[in-house]
């Protein structure tokens, strides 16, 4: 049995049939204490091939993707293309609370292990089905990738420079559409779970990766509705004064000036003699400051001031004065953040098989009674076959037969 967990989802059993499109969902459930059983094909899950790898060693247990998204899970291998395999899945499902799956629409039904069949046998089952476009509609059978999802979902249109193709947030290693679909799936599942405590029945939830992206349009929706303006990518242009990324002596800072901070802002620039005309009364008027020419003037003064100071100086001093300011951190600087280190955000995990300790990303939130935990490191393929299958009633002889026949 897995380590004793005391997360808020302790006692729940989740069958993980999700690929990279929803990996973050099942990771969350595992780190919140659910017993998540990752079901891999007998050769090992395809996501074990996703790079980068520990020290670039392309071995199935060294994929960073695999290690990161599969903490605290148990692994079984199962060939769902076989009759015995489907039969075993039905047995597993009978004792599960939640199934998370990313098969194309209709595939599980075709295999005879769809919602109708599984929920009839286990009415408390909650099934979260994540697909590129949902289970119905003209695009339901279309394929996707993270890039295609952010393109169709509207997020890409607001990213990058106006004079060239839009560029997606997060690069190749942080697929934002997949993360968003994953958290939407987790939310929908947990809403159904709460409902189940009253109704004693589960639900089938349809999560569309496509429909998980438009929330990123934020106020561009009402802006479009009320003025017809279509917000697009702006590069480094600032639509409001003191609002954006600015170069400083040793890099960049991100600064967001709130209107009630104008006087303090002028004071700040003035301490280095860079306030100039901005000290005049007329600049106190918020609408005057919004005029494009005046935005440029304010930014010009600000930039001169910023080039005199380092990221860290500006950050600490700016925050002391009550501004919303942050250093634009390189990835290295994130890992060296005094703030994150003091909070012990990064979590060391021993890897005896690698002969070293690796540091992992930590908790998205802290709960006082039932903490999020990394728990066990990601499992080997089929590592928990014996214990999990014995729970379903298989004996050793049967297990051996199924293994040899490639069903497990």
């Amino acid at each position, binding site marked *: 049995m897995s380590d004793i967990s005391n997360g808020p989802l302790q006692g729940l059993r989740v069958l993980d049939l999700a690929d990279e499109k929803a990996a973050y969902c099942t990771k969350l459930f595992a780190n919140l204490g659910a017993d998540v059983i990752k079901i891999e094909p007998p050769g090992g899950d395809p996501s074990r091939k996703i790079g980068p790898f520990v020290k670039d060693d392309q071995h199935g247990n060294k994929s960073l993707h695999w290690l990161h998204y599969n903490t605290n899970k148990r692994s079984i291998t199962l060939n769902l293309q076989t009759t015995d395999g489907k039969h075993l899945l039905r047995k597993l499902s009978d004792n599960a609370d939640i199934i998370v799956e990313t098969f194309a629409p209709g595939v599980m039904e075709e295999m005879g292990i769809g919602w109708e069949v599984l929920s009839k046998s286990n009415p408390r089952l909650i099934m979260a089905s994540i697909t590129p476009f949902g289970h119905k509609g003209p695009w339901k059978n279309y394929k996707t990738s993270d890039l295609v999802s952010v393109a169709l979902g509207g997020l890409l249109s607001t990213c990058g420079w106006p004079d060239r193709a839009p560029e997606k947030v997060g690069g190749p290693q942080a697929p934002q559409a997949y993360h968003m679909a994953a958290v939407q799936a987790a939310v929908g599942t947990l809403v159904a779970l709460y409902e189940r405590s009253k109704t004693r029945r589960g639900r089938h939830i349809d999560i*569309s990766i496509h*429909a998980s992206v438009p929330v990123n349009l934020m106020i561009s929706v009402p802006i479009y509705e009320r003025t017809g303006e279509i917000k697009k990518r702006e590069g480094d242009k600032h639509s409001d004064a003191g609002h954006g990324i600015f170069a400083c002596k040793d890099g960049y800072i991100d600064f967001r000036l709130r209107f009630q901070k104008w006087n303090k802002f002028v004071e700040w620039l003035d301490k280095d003699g860079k306030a100039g005309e901005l000290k005049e009364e007329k600049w106190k008027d918020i609408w005057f400051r919004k005029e494009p020419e005046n935005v440029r003037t304010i930014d010009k003064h600000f930039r001169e001031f910023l080039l005199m100071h380092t990221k860290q100086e500006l950050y600490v001093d700016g925050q002391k004065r009550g501004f919303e300011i942050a250093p634009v951190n390189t990835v290295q600087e994130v890992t060296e953040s005094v703030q994150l280190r003091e909070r012990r955000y990064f979590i060391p995990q021993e890897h005896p098989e690698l002969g070293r300790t690796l540091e992992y990303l930590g908790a998205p939130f802290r709960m006082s*009674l039932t903490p999020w935990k990394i728990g066990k490191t990601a499992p080997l393929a089929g590592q928990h076959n014996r214990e999990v299958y014995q729970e379903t009633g298989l004996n050793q002889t049967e297990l051996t037969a199924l293994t040899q026949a490639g069903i497990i």
Partner: protein
Amino acid sequence: MEDVLPLAGLRIIEFGYFVAGPLTGKLFADFGAEVIVIENEDYLRTHQSSRQPGLGATDLTSLNQGNMFNRYGTNKLSLTLNLKQPRAVELIKQLVAQSDIVMDNFTPHVMESYGLTYEDLIKIKPDIIVLNMPTMGKKSIYEHHRAESWNLLAMAGINYMSGSEDSIPICPSVFSHPDVSCNPFHAMISLLSALHYRELTGKGQHIELSQFESTVCFTGTGVFDFLVNNRTPERTGNRSQHAAPHGVYRCAGEDKWCAVTVFDDDQWKALCLVMGREDLITDETFGTLLSRLSNVQALDQIVAGWTCQRPPEEVMETLQAVGIAAGKVQNVAELIESDPQLRERGYWVPIDHPETGKAHGEGWGFEFIDGPKALNRPAPLLGEHSDHVLQTILKLTEEEVSQLIGDGVIG
């Protein structure tokens, strides 16, 4: 049974401002919980907030035409109180006694100054669930720092993970992305998890979500690669290290683009056939994945040479028809007016607000098959439900309410 919404019966007190807190509360309100937003008119008139009249506002003195408040305030109740008055804090505490969750996204000292910390509230209701969403988190060097969510992206290294090597690390999106993705959704997950635990054990708890930490959780293997391999991810724009072609290609028309991503031999072959370039299938320079990856610029030019002659819809349909993941870059107008999938799904919730009129309300990425849909009441006017909350829930009389207004406790 379908008439009962999944979160009906829950009561939540929301001290939310801007987006992350309110979007969290919106989940609960949309699916049947009673979410009471605590607001103060004086504060709202003198500070930047989501109730400030936004673009398109018809009345610049109204606090009911804020685009952000209206978008994320659907199905909620508004109670105005002046929390500097002890009697107002008293009223909050009486409300807490009948609530399940109290949440805020202030810096830590704010709730402390009101005497409404977790330690204060469990004295009133021992199983209360309290969520704080500060920027940084308690007991840390920068505990009192503040951030707008663009700042969070910058601190989490995401600016440097986005875009290409040849450009400065701009803010990756015009909008403050963590406010609508990692932060509110992690918050929702934390609250729902706490509710589940409470159903099992009767115990509430205290949740702290550091918005900085929550944002770093969305960096996938980017920051992890540095932790493990001491390596900074290359800024490769839209390219992939294991697939080609993989990018965004110009199409016919003004600023029209389509994303095209090819992942295996079959898809490569299909693309060549569609482009009328069978010669490329086995071509030395492009016939294998490795050769395509090492000649990616020339490859992109070939693909763009084909896409630029066609509107993005045609590129997308043609390629999807042969099994290639392709999707046009849609903007907000297209998503609202012509996206057939969002329409089929009913993604845009029809909202009708008394001051700002009809709107396409925010939907959800998940839906319950044959199940309940989100509610669609508009966001409340400022103080719209003060009477209801005070008289119906807290059982104050009309006279008591008038007295409180006179004393400046309500407003």
